[in-house]
């Protein structure tokens, strides 16, 4: 049964971390969400495919830590019109899979299905995500999150909530 035993299960605290991150995003808990990030963070939502080079190709989001902070600050002004009133959100995180574990760092994949309701109407977003997490003093932090919208090669509506 070697095929089975080679598939490692995802540590429970990692699963809980992903659920928590999803809840903070859905409930617009901006400060708590920002606190999940490490200083060397990259928050990446590519366009036009799964794996373009973000250093030469346009992405929907390609934020370092300071731009994540700016994004949150803008949302908190209350004048980010595309989030005023904020989108109503509920997302399912599923298909969580351990990709790699080395030292303090863990890479996991997951899919999400996000229901968004705003003034324009209802939109369903489907994504394939990859996370790189780091254990820091016993807690998990996020160092990289890549969100691949399955329709990222098509025209998409405004996406101004935290995806």
């Amino acid at each position, binding site marked *: 049964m070697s095929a089975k035993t080679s598939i490692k299960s995802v540590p429970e605290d990692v699963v809980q971390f992903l659920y928590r991150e999803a809840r903070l995003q859905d409930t617009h808990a901006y400060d708590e969400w920002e606190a999940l990030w490490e200083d060397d963070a990259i928050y990446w*939502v590519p*366009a*036009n495919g799964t794996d*373009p080079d973000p*250093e*030469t*190709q*346009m*992405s*929907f*989001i*390609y934020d370092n830590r300071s*731009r994540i902070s*700016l*994004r949150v*600050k*803008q949302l908190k*002004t*209350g*004048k*980010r*019109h*595309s989030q005023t009133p904020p989108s109503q959100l509920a997302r399912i995180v599923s298909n969580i899979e351990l990709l790699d574990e080395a030292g303090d760092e863990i890479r996991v994949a997951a899919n999400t299905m996000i229901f968004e309701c705003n*003034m*324009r*109407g209802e939109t369903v977003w489907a994504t394939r995500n990859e996370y790189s997490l780091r254990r820091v003093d016993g807690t998990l932090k996020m160092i990289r999150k890549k969100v691949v919208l399955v329709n990222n*090669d*098509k*025209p*998409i*509506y*405004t*996406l*101004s909530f935290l*995806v």
Partner: protein
Amino acid sequence: MNVETPISQWSRLIEPGRVHGALYSDPAIFQAELEKIWFRTWVYVGHVSEVPNRNDYVTKSIGPMPVLMVRDREGEIRLLLNRCPHRGNAVCVIEKGNRSSFTCPYHSWTFANDGRLIGYAFPDGYQGVERSDLGLAQVPRIAIHKGFVFGSMAEDGPSLEEHLGGAIRAIDQLCENSPEGEIELTAGFLRHRTKANWKFILENECDGYHPGFVHASIFSVADSKIGELYGASSIAVTRDFGNGHTEVDLRPEFRRRGEPLSWFGTTPARLPGYVAAMEAAYGREKARQIMIDGTPHTMIFPNLFIAEIQLFVIQPVAVDETIQHVTALQFKGAPDFNRRMRQQTMGSVGPAGFLLADDTEMYERNQRGLLTRNPEWLFLERGMHRERDDEDGYRIAHSTDDLPSRGIWRHYKTLMEAA
């Protein structure tokens, strides 16, 4: 004898200082626009740098209609209509690539990338048929200015130069900011879908009244001097070039500052490679002036917006649906500059951008506002009393005035009334 001139449908909808809401929401008007504007006037299609090599192609559009922009085997740029003359199938459904021919998947008709039919399956069934009549259709007129490819679905009409008129300066000014005098579009497009009529977007591009309000959220948290350019005390002007082309000319503000690259929110010390390349190309004095003036903020009717560091293409899809295609401009021979343009473009535009997401929210609210029947008209009189002519005879007004919208509607009415 008094002969009354009949008032056209368009005169009843378009007045010098106001336009009727039906212009943005009536599906019959949208259909008429396709015939009178999108399939008649010059429309920006793409840039030659998107098809750098022989046999490269990329899918583009003229209005809602898909076209293939091709560099054929001889190196010539062509605009092919993506429809097999046999049964109407698209001959190409992959967005870009390199191929010297296209084969329709339905009955295997094959076309060279200059449009010629070069073969079909089981040719003995086509005795006596003239192949040369069965090629892919092409956009009847194509013209290229400094790498910008325009197409017109009309067999006859004004030349591209006549159409662009004074707005040609915007393309030239843009290219002059490149040390090699050329721009490239190599970073790929973000495509942003909006439930709004295309003309709300067209008018907003040179609306200098909204930035301080729509973009207050980002101006208040980022270190940006953009907001001041559109303030009440700004000396920037709006300009109507005629033919529907409009701009916000920010050069008076940048010249007042007198600092190279202040238009880009940076300094020569931070971009030494670019500055050295510019000085080598143009000489110290001219390079300094170019870098003070910066790039234009110009809307070329009906679909090409040059927005300082970005290029937008407006594509109407339906009366209440529009796609904005946007990418970072890239200057040939300026890698350090290009990286900053990409980073700033990704931050500001596209569906998640700090700026454009909020503009787009406004367009969608504008569109929904039309459901409210009273008042039926949209008011465009801001700054009418202070319009004046510049030294070239173009109408200008304050950067926050509605002059661009008035210019757009004047041209629109001319196009829609044409036989």
